[in-house]
């Protein structure tokens, strides 16, 4: 390959201007990343300290650091708050990242895990598990939810690729909506005919971190970890796919490989998150839009930052839910819908939503 040599000395070196612009952009992205990291730490601290029984920062810290302690506080911190915070961190990150991937792959600004049949598939499987097999604990139906999420995504992909053009953003979205409508109708039918299952399902479907112990966190952790790695590997390909499939392939990207990696990552992430906490809306949709303000369309930055913001959003909403309804608590899914909706409207009004 011959690299073009500079044959003429440009009067004003435009490269310098481009270089300076890039430095400014990089600085903004690094700054955004640092702020997000700080927010994650703050949200974790709040999630450990705040609850129906508030612990001062000092008490929480001693309980955290001194494991020989067997006080009531230490038990609360280690048995309840730490697993819950860890789960919130993982699930929030998974939702944010999978939202960024789905928006990137479908080039649809409304993309979120619900779009590709993940949520519907998981819900259907959980209802089946509850109604037919009488499974009653989160740790029990995690596997069913996961299998359902996987089956849902694969079904959407197969349906979406059936046409002559193969899987395009539009056919995928159409297949996702159609399948979701069908599955949710089936879910409702089953719940109407069996009111006993309704309570167990209701608790799952509202979306909550409460009541999920360390066992659930351990169950989904490997899947989320694998999903995050795949997502980061997929990021450079998303940058190219954003230019259209023809240009991406012309630049040496194997399209099927990029799509497969993305599909695997979203299924792992959104499937694991939905399995653990039920369908949680808004995080996957909003997080990528917010971070895009400072990352721009560069997925190497967008994907990890969306994950961090997703974790912040989920943990904050969870803490908020513990505070507003004391001594009871509001499920995180409800808080997110209540707070997230106006927030999203404000975001859309403030700046033109990016066409992807």
């Amino acid at each position, binding site marked *: 390959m011959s690299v073009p040599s500079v044959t003429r000395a440009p009067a004003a070196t*435009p490269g310098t*201007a481009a270089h300076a612009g890039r430095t400014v952009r990089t600085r903004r992205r690094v700054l955004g990343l640092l702020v997000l990291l700080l927010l994650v730490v703050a949200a974790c601290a709040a999630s450990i300290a705040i609850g129906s029984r508030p612990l001062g920062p000092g008490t929480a810290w001693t309980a955290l650091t001194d494991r020989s302690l067997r006080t009531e506080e230490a038990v609360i911190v280690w048995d309840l708050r730490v697993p819950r915070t860890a789960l919130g961190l993982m699930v929030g990150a998974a939702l944010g990242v999978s939202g960024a991937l789905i928006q990137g792959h479908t080039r649809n600004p409304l993309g979120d895990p619900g779009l590709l049949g993940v949520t519907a598939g998981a819900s259907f499987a959980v209802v089946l598990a509850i109604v037919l097999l009488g499974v009653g604990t989160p740790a029990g139906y995690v596997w069913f939810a996961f299998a359902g999420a996987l089956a849902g995504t694969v079904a959407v992909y197969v349906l979406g690729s059936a046409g002559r053009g193969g899987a395009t953003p539009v056919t995928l979205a159409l297949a996702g909506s159609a399948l979701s409508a069908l599955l949710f109708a089936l879910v409702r039918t089953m719940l109407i005919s069996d009111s006993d299952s309704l309570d167990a399902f209701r608790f799952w479907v509202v979306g909550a971190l409460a009541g999920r112990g360390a066992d659930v966190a351990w169950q989904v952790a490997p899947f989320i970890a694998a999903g995050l790695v795949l997502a980061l590997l997929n990021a450079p390909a998303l940058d190219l796919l954003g230019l259209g499939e023809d240009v991406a392939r012309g630049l040496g990207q194997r399209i099927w490989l990029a799509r497969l990696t993305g599909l695997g990552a979203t299924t792992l992430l959104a499937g694991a998150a939905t399995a653990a906490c039920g369908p949680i809306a808004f995080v996957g949709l909003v997080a990528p839009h917010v971070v895009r303000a400072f990352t721009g369309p560069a997925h190497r930055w967008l994907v990890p930052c969306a994950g961090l913001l997703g974790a912040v959003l989920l943990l904050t909403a969870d803490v908020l839910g513990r505070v507003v309804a004391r001594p009871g608590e509001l499920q995180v899914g409800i808080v997110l819908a209540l707070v997230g909706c106006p927030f999203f409207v404000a975001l859309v009004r403030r700046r033109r939503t990016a066409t992807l």
Partner: protein
Amino acid sequence: MTTSTPDAPPLSAPTSDGRVRLAAEGLRLAYDDRVVVEGLDLTLTDGSFTAIVGPNGCGKSTLLRALGRLLRPAAGRVLLDGRAIQRTPTRDVARALGLLPQTPVAPAGLTVADLVARGRHPHQSWLRQWSAEDEAVVAEALSWTDMGDLADRPVDELSGGQRQRAWISMALAQGTDLILLDEPTTYLDLSHQIDVLELVARLHAERGRTVVVVLHDLNLAARYAQRLVAMRDGVLVASGTPHEVLTEQLLADVFDLEARVVPDPVAGSPMVVPVRRLRR
């Protein structure tokens, strides 16, 4: 974009040894069952400058996509440097051949500099990330198209002509010596059309790039390209120098156009003066 290059080196004729870079053999191209291009043979030699002309829907873009390995032929094959292109890895093709589709779209907020930087993708890997060489090539691609001042502007906020130049910069940054451009002059006013074609001509003349351009303006095609390829209904009708191809008979056959062909008063290349549309 200014086309005057006061400090440009004297134009050297591209050193062409007539080696075949890209060839199509018995190509049949189809979308599902609908055959769009049939029995097409074409050879493109090293350092040549070819323009493909033909009426709307005759299969020019389809042919270009097949030449760039974006479309798998239903029959026949494409050879890149003597090797079947379908069996060449995607990345190797991307290092040898750059293709600019007819109407590419950039995502919102993507700056010109970042778009052009993505052209370096075929040269990067996990081991070899962004390098000083990439930086230099991108800067040079920007300066070639006079996009340096617009480097930090989002592509979706540029005029049609500026956008076109941004995409051409990206194709340049890819650093391939084989470049296929699908209608790079659509949306451009006449002077910007000239700008783009001058740029392409310079790439060919000064850099010895092998260039294929799909064009609708026959007069500009005849003036800039060394060779014209005329297509109609998916069949290659004529191929040769502009003088050989642009005849009154061919215009009637390919474009259903009654026209006079006179010498271009500026360049001496054949110039088409339409008389009226012929009904078949």
